[in-house]
């Protein structure tokens, strides 16, 4: 009688099991977490801060999540929580790129004007070039809808806004970009 190697397919972890595994510091749980969410966060990071910084931002997000796991109460889905960490890290990244001073208010108490951020795709007339001109909320809503395939309700949860706001942001973003896609298609 011969025996062959049997390929074992491990059952996928539930979200609760995944979180518990990560909290316990288990390698397989971290592997699973990266496998499930890294590509998504990398794409979102790409849309928020551009190609150069996207990888670092996505990785920092995961590392920040490891440190904050004790504080995660499970009130939202893990993906929603990770995206909120990503957005916070993106803001920190943009602030550090501007080389903030510790006293941003001038003598009269007025906020100092911020230097312009680095170009996301310098010199390139691509959809990403137009995307960078949109406010972050519109940009993120577009990506969550078109790239991540999320429904309005999911996007509303991730962005902590009403569903009506998701609709109006999508509408506004399309209005602003429709000239570009019209040019591209002709």
């Amino acid at each position, binding site marked *: 009688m011969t025996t062959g190697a049997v390929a074992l397919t491990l059952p996928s972890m539930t979200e609760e099991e995944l979180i518990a595994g*990560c909290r316990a*510091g288990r*390698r397989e749980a*971290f*592997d699973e*977490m*990266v496998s499930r969410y*890294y*590509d998504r966060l*990398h*794409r979102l*990071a*790409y849309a928020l801060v551009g*190609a150069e910084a*996207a*990888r670092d931002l996505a990785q920092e997000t*995961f*590392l920040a999540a*490891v*440190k904050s796991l004790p*504080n995660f109460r499970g009130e939202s889905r893990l993906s929603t929580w990770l995206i909120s960490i990503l957005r916070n890290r993106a*803001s920190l990244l*943009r*602030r550090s790129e*501007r080389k*903030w*001073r*510790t006293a*941003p*208010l001038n003598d009269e108490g007025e*906020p*100092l004007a*911020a230097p312009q951020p680095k170009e996301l795709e310098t010199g390139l007339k*691509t*959809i*990403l070039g137009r*995307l960078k001109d949109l*406010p972050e909320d519109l940009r993120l809503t*577009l*990506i969550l*809808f*078109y*790239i991540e395939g999320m*429904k*309005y*309700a999911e996007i509303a949860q991730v962005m902590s806004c*009403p*569903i*009506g*706001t998701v*609709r109006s942001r*999508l*509408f506004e973003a*399309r209005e602003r*970009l*429709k000239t*570009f*896609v*019209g040019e591209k*298609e002709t």
Partner: protein
Amino acid sequence: MEECTAARRAMEALIDGELAIAEEADLQTHLAGCASCAREFAERKAVSASLGRALRSALGSARSTPAEKKALAERMVRAAHPPLVLAPRIAAAVAVAAILGIVAYATGLFRKPNVHPSTTSGLAAEAADAVARRDAARARYEKLLAEIERMTEEVRSQLPPNGEATPADRTAALELSALEDQVCEIAYPPGKPEPPADLTAQVDGNLRNLGSDRAQVRASARKQLRSLRPDALPLLETALESVRKQDRWFVSKLIDELRDASEERRDRVVVRQSQGDRQIEFRQFGDAQIEVVVTQKGTQRKVTARGMNELLRKHEDLCRQFAISGRDGSVVVGDVESGMELDGQLELLFRARNASDFSPLRREAYSKLLEARRADEKELESRLAEMEKKCRQAEDRLRQSAWTAPADLDRGMAVVRGCDEARLRTLRSEAEQEISEMETKIREFLRLGARINGLKTYVQEVKAARK
């Protein structure tokens, strides 16, 4: 024409696969019979499809490799089990704490003599770091709060007295009160309620406090005045003339509200619609209360809410099912729209006492101001777009500003010096807890501050448009 307006509103949801079944049937029926809408639908669908393709193509290069993911997972394991080597920032603190720990151990200050000094020195360093970060978070919080209060005062000073106020000014005044109330809820949690004073003294005191320089005092006065019962009505009516001009609109709205409270509740907005085998009736009353009654096959279901914000938040499924949207005083149910004039909407918004998205109201009020100044349609659109763009930029500027404060580790070390292990753990835990709370408040302040900065720009634009 109304059908086309409703159809255009529903198109995006259909393209996105988010339209309720009954509504989809209605829209398809309309598109089959309206060439103009059918054309527009086809164009929007094409734009959406092109946009999706362009985005997927552009972001396709954002790929990772298995090696990259593996390396990341390894880093995460190391982060979850940090070695004894501490980050450079607190390494110096560890050395100091170790000396302190060893000295304390040698002099018998520890209650548990078998505690190893190096464990406690690491704990002392962590506690000192947490305390330093907590103090930095407190400083950021104070700085941001001071800036928000300064901006609020600046906006208030630019609003004209009620006698000269346009609907655009009244919109801004109402929004400013709502934002100020939210800031005060966060910054100044309510203390113990004071024993009730004599009603006359209470009303007089609160009317005087409306004009205070301090936001907290003003917010408290507004809250107290809004909780008055109808028997306070004669006192308010008598006092109205002596109230400051800037506060007269607020007090007169309170008076109207108290007057209406003593009468039978009147409808302000009513929409009735049939959707398939269901009938839906939406009502908003003069006190901003909303009732929605759905009847299906003889059974009735009723929900209530105080204002549209609460309805959309607490009864999201119902609103999605029946396509209910809009704001207080201007509502859409399915394809039917019903609403009041701007002043009526402001009145209901005042009575709903919910923070709301004021952008559509600002737009409508500003538009009316320009129409009164005989702006033609092209100029109106251009100036509206310009005003909204400036308000958004002002919001972004505040959100993106840095509100930093350095963490003073020396001070942190001074706080933890001499503490035993139990005390160090408590200090660290309490500091981390407070940092988390401060960060939540700071995020809220950034959101509200951005809106106040946008409102400041709006008020400036209104002032310029009045000239």
